């Protein structure tokens, strides 16, 4: 154990502490940005320390770092805020791929692995591979390059089960005696890549928050396994922090949809439940014009906007904020009520509204808005559907029964901005649209809100 080895590992301890402080500071919007910088400083410190190891081949390191930094920075500063989910999915996939490559390079260099190292090397390659191909599929679905609808094929569970079994068998063979089993290692990599695709492709667009959280967790666990392969503590600590964070987010997302993780992963929700269930809602739809909506809003003392994925699609966050400002100038209290699974990743709506300069103290969580819903004059639902469907509360036959919702139907008036009467992702009719206190304001969300803004300016 040389002195430089000890010094490097001592620096890793400091890095680990910085990661932990950084994550801790992320728990408040006021310190979050600093927290991210603290965590980045920890990473930089670890990288610099690593460069002091002996016998490194700097030209290849430099090449990788320069290309990687250029690509990473370019992507990070060019991406639209509405495309953050696919961006995170892609970065995540690259992290997984790098764990796979690292395990492979280690095996290539020292093929005579012990049983323990054999197991973790196989794990690192497998989890890394699943993370990579799964994230690429998630990226494709989120950016609509491949259909975001669940893709189901017959015998899906059987095939996935068989793939998993094959992976375990191959990993056991590999672990018992890794030397000379190069083919088996490649086989594990291929199985992992296939499994990533077959396990993510059946999952529908609105379940993406769960999938992204889960893949996020996998990328951490892959880094962790790679840490075991090379016997490096900092990889294990950082990897398990990320793994734990992903698991918690996955749990929160599942809870917000009242579904188990198994149900999200295996049911192909939205493909099988699209036929009508129970009795259709009764009542009539009451359409409203921009002028009608203007008079309702103009008289309101408190207005809560309820955004959904439709807001992101229509890029309506900036006009929504503009309307919110006009309402405030008009003397109304303005809030933005956000369902935990609105959008395509956890917290998606919060980021979009923050981009439009909505202060974070106006972003209200579901439970807080529900407790005061009865006193709210107007709820404006923008491109959300299933997360405001009262069937989740009172229709036991509904497939979303039990899911917590934002109870907009209890507000004095609800204005729903929607393109048409088409059902939402879950394929369920929404009784809210037929409610007596509901007005449907049809059209593209952005154009509709612009029309309202114009009405307000006209009235001035």
């Amino acid at each position, binding site marked *: 154990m040389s002195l430089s080895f000890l010094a490097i590992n001592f620096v890793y301890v400091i890095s680990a502490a910085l*990661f932990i402080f950084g*994550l801790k500071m*992320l*728990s408040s919007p006021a310190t*979050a*940005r600093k927290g*991210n*910088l603290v965590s*980045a400083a920890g*990473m930089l410190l*670890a990288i610099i320390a690593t460069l002091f190891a002996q*016998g490194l*081949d700097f030209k*290849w390191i430099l090449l*990788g*770092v320069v290309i*990687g930094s250029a690509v*990473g*920075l370019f992507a*990070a500063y060019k991406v639209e805020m509405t495309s*953050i989910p696919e*961006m995170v999915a892609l*970065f*995540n996939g*690259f*992290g997984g791929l*790098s*764990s796979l*490559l*690292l395990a492979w390079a280690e095996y290539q*260099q020292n093929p005579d692995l012990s049983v*323990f190292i054999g197991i973790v090397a196989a794990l690192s390659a497998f989890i890394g591979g699943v993370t990579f191909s799964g994230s690429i599929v998630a990226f494709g679905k989120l950016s609509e390059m491949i259909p975001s609808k669940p893709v189901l094929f017959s015998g899906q569970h059987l095939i996935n089960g068989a793939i998993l079994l094959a992976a375990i068998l191959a990993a056991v063979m590999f672990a018992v005696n890794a030397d000379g089993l190069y083919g088996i290692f490649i086989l594990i990599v291929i199985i992992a890549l296939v499994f990533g695709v077959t396990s993510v492709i059946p999952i529908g667009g609105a379940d993406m928050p769960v999938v*992204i959280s889960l893949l*996020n967790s996998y990328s*951490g666990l892959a880094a962790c396994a790679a*840490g*075991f392969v*090379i016997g*490096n503590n900092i*990889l*294990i600590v*950082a990897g*398990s*922090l*990320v793994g*734990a*964070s*992903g698991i*918690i*987010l996955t749990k929160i997302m599942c809870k917000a949809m009242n579904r188990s993780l198994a149900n999200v992963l295996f049911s192909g929700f939205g493909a099988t439940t699209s036929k009508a269930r129970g009795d259709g809602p009764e009542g009539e739809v009451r359409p409203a014009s921009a002028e009608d909506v203007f008079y309702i809003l103009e008289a309101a003392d408190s207005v809560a906007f309820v955004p959904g994925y439709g807001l992101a699609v229509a890029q309506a966050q900036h006009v929504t904020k503009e309307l919110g400002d006009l309402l405030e100038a008009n003397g109304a209290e303005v809030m933005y009520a*956000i369902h*935990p699974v609105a959008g395509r990743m956890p*917290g998606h709506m*919060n*980021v979009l509204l*923050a981009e439009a300069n*909505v*202060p*974070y103290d106006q972003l209200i*969580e579901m439970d807080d808005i529900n407790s005061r819903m009865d006193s709210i004059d107007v709820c404006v639902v923008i491109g959300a559907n299933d997360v405001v469907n009262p069937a989740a509360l009172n229709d036991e036959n509904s497939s979303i029964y039990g899911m917590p919702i934002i109870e907009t139907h209890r507000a004095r008036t609800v204005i729903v901005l929607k393109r048409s009467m088409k059902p939402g992702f879950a394929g369920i009719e929404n009784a809210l649209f037929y409610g007596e206190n509901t007005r449907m304001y049809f059209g593209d969300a952005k154009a509709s809100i612009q029309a309202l803004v114009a009405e307000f300016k006209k009235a001035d």
Partner: protein
Amino acid sequence: MEAVFLTFVFVLSIFLGFELISKVPSTLHTPLMSGSNAISGITMIGAIASLKSEHHALAIFLGTLAVTFATINVVGGYAVTDRMLEMFKKKDQGDAK
């Protein structure tokens, strides 16, 4: 023995992670995810350490690829998280733009 020691570190870190993350409010879930995603690029450390000049050509090739992808993950992840967090403002700050 080393395996036991590493597993020890692993288990404690998982618990620490649970404790830290369960305190993050839902408003910050997207930055949390992209920020923790950047941390998972920690593989970069391992990839750099694996690039030794006396290694096989294929191992060097794989290592260079690993460094490249991990760097995209790290640099891109932190940069995009910073860009997002910059936008989260309190009311008085938001008005004084």
